[in-house]
């Protein structure tokens, strides 16, 4: 399997990183002094004091931004294989991609007109 062999360095990197993190954590836990205090266990040890719990509801606007991000992300995913080969494919491929983007532009202009791209 050629793909499997091509990804062998990434596999080696994964194994190495897991081993390194485990090793460093174990060594520091074994040999380092462990004396937690209130100040040390604060979220930002030498930063601002937390003024309240971070666990609270967020405005739905974040969700809209995340959804729009994913949609444009997937759009690029579809363009990427096309962009790799579009020089060999000629006019037909170009027209196809223009149609693809034109349909998406409808959604884009809808988002624009509705003000979904603005934060306010």
């Amino acid at each position: 399997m050629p793909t499997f062999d091509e990804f062998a360095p990434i596999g080696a990197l994964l194994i190495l990183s897991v081993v390194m993190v485990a090793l460093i954590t174990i060594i520091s836990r074994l040999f380092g002094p462990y004396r937690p205090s209130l100040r040390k266990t604060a979220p930002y040890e030498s930063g601002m004091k937390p003024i309240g719990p971070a666990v609270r509801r967020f405005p739905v606007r974040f969700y809209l931004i995340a959804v729009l991000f994913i949609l444009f992300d997937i759009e690029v995913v579809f363009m990427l294989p096309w962009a790799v080969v579009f020089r060999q494919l000629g006019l037909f491929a170009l027209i196809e991609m223009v149609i693809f983007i034109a349909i998406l532009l409808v959604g884009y202009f809808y988002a624009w007109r509705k003000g979904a791209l603005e934060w306010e």
Partner: protein
Amino acid sequence: MEFNIHSIVFLIFSVITLGGGLGTVTSRNLIHGAVYLIVSLFGVAGLFILLSAPFLAAIQVLVYIGAIAILIIFAVMLTRSMTRMTEIYNRQWSLSLVVSALLFVLLLVGIILPVWGPGTANAALQPSELVATTVDLGVAFVDGNQFVLPFEVASLLLTAAMIGAIVIARDRD
């Protein structure tokens, strides 16, 4: 079944995927569940590598872990009392049991029929011989005999999803 490096790696990634999925459905804290889901999605990316689909593996990491997991974490943060859940909150568990059982059977049939069922024309072909590289995928997207229509329908689907998200999430228009 022969026992080689591929089967060991398959075993590792299967354990990562299934373990992450198990953690997702059993954790009481929804944020922890989302992190388990990331682990599970990463395992699926590894399985894509084993299936000779490097493009899908990269997309799995970029889109699913990088974007959809973030969206799920956002969705968790939008909901009330996300960390104070102490008991299973599901009033329709009998109905969801039926739906998930049906879905499981459907997936099982969907896997068994194309691989071992009758009329498996591509059974002798390795998956990598159909669409081997990103170049093949790009050609398949624009080739009139292959995936032109699904490609264009995908953009329609994305537009519909965009409009739907805006309609649902806008508090006023």
